[in-house]
């Protein structure tokens, strides 16, 4: 089903791209819904579900009930995007601006078939949201295709922390999650954005993210993804104006036959803007993880640093890291460090001399490896991340 039109121009551009690729329905581009799957679904009478785009927000009501009044009093809006577009005409200004609708077939699919699903988070200028805003997006049924368009707007001087949990439930089978997220940070606005993904082996996940940081804005992102996933292909681009700061940490635990491709770019457009992109990747079993990270300096006195570390555990896992530094301006300072290694035997021995067996010792080293100390994150969020790190390290120790 083709979704309601919120912008005629965006719809036309999206359709033009899809037609040029011969795409007339969602299922054609998704790996899981090949002819055999469609045929099987038809036999079961579920073929219409293959073309259906939907999403489930777990605990939506509870979160809203707990936060709604306090948020509303502050002028904060957390709402489904479709509803918000109908209600707030100013939102058109942000609709597919940071992320072009014809960026690729996936953004076009979100526009044409997304039905306005996804969320808006809006924080008025100067408002400092005291508690984290939680968003949870789950796919629970086999054959579901989740098409999301999310817009986050923080006015000048606003501050917020957003935590998103996305994943498929156990036994969800073949599912797809395509999320287009546009983030706009006004002057001196500050956003902590924590994203935790846990998918299943039948999942196809294609996040597309664009962030615009106005003068003096600060964006701190922590992304963790674990569990088997069919394909996870993430593309992130940040455009940074004068004096803005971006810090991004990605922690990936690739296992089973997972195929990860991460593509992150920070464009330092304004003077004295800076970006630090940090990644930790653990590859297990038959997984393949490709991590491309780039910082481009377009203005003087900009600074950028890339740190990529990968740890293949197992003989068949493939990890590839590609740090790219590009300068178009005089006086830019860019650096990178990239390493693929193994657990240090001396460190293992040290921990075993403490009385820990090999599994316990490996768990501690893995936890240390995936830990990234993120500046400026609120303590409760750090504790949440630490708890996830501990659980994962213990699970993956052997």
């Amino acid at each position, binding site marked *: 089903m083709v979704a309601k039109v919120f912008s005629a121009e965006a719809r036309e551009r999206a359709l033009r791209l899809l037609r040029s690729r011969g795409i007339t329905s969602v299922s054609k581009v998704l790996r899981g819904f090949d002819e055999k799957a469609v045929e099987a679904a038809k036999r079961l009478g579920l073929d219409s579900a293959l073309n259906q785009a939907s999403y489930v927000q777990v605990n939506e009501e509870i979160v809203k009930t707990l936060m709604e009044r306090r948020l509303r009093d502050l002028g904060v809006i957390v709402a489904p995007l479709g509803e918000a577009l109908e209600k707030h005409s100013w939102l058109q200004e942000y609709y597919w601006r940071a992320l072009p609708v014809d960026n690729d077939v996936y953004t076009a699919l979100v526009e044409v078939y997304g039905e306005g699903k996804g969320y808006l988070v809006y924080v008025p200028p100067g408002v400092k949201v005291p508690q984290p805003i939680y968003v949870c997006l789950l796919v629970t049924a086999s054959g579901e295709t989740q098409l999301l368009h999310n817009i986050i707007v923080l006015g000048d001087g606003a501050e917020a922390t957003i935590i998103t949990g996305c994943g498929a439930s156990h036994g969800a089978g073949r599912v797809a999650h395509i999320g287009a997220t546009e983030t706009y940070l006004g002057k001196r606005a500050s956003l902590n954005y924590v994203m935790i993904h846990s998918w299943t082996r039948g999942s196809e996940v294609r996040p597309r993210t664009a962030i615009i940081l106005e003068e003096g804005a600060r964006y701190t992102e922590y992304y963790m993804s674990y569990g088997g996933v069919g394909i996870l292909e993430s593309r992130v681009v940040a455009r940074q104006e004068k004096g803005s700061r971006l810090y991004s940490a990605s922690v990936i635990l690739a296992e089973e036959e997972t195929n990860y491709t991460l593509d992150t770019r920070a464009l330092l457009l304004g003077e004295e803007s800076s970006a630090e992109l940090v990644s930790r990747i653990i590859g297990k079993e038959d997984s393949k993880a490709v991590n491309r990270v780039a910082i481009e300096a377009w203005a003087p006195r900009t600074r950028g640093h890339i740190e990529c570390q990968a740890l293949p555990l197992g003989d068949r896992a493939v990890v590839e890291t590609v740090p790219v530094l590009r300068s178009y301006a005089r006086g830019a300072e860019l650096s990178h460090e990239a390493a693929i290694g193994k657990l*240090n*035997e*001396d*460190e293992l*021995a*040290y*921990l*075993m*001399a*403490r*009385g*820990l*067996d*090999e599994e*316990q010792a490996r*768990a*501690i*080293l893995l*936890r*240390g*490896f*995936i*830990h*990234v*100390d993120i500046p400026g994150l609120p303590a409760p969020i750090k504790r949440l991340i630490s708890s996830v790190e*501990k659980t994962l390290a213990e699970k993956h120790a052997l």
Partner: protein
Amino acid sequence: MVLELRNVFVEASGRPVVRGVSLRVESSELQVLMGPNGAGKSSLLSALMGLPGYRVVKGEVLLDGQRLNDLTLYERARRGLGLGFQTPPRMKGVTARCILEALEKIHGPWRDLRRYARLLGVEDLLDKPLGSLSGGERKRVELLLVLAQRPRVMLLDEPDSGVDIDSLGLIADVVEESVRRGIGVLLVTHTTHFLEELVGRGIVSGINVMIDGVIRLSGEPRRVLQLLEERGLRGAAGGA
């Protein structure tokens, strides 16, 4: 009797480094092992603990009368042997808290944690990555981690090296308390100041001087120090 070494020979990476050492460390006793660089002191402690690359090739190591020679590294630790490393690894991202939590799973809650952490001045360091600590901080945390194993015998390999004067005092305090609480300690040191500090506290039961893998001199601490002084060997024996 707690730890006993009977005519122990050690190889490090296949090379003989210790030849025929016999030594006893009783409960509530501090034995000091000193000697020049390369004498084999650290190799001996590493072999006693069972670290990779170090092997007791002859002789017996007994803990409470039970032979340790054939036990794995962590089995020795769980029997009650604790090694404080001279240069602990940096271990990126790992905090003392992570290790303490893992040890708690083995031994149950450690009621003395806060007290020892306070004594060592490391209460605020437990959640920091070990690799970010200064030399002195790391050495104090190292001692805390050894104690967290609830050892019967601590093997402390130069706990004083690279440590500032204030940290030395804190480390000496905790070593003293450990000895008084019944732990046996075999301690390697190079620095005269730290050795005299320990001797002055009356907690050193014996000093053993190792040269070229052999213990050449051992006995009551003041007597050994006097002999070294008389023979002009204080420096040669490792006293800095």
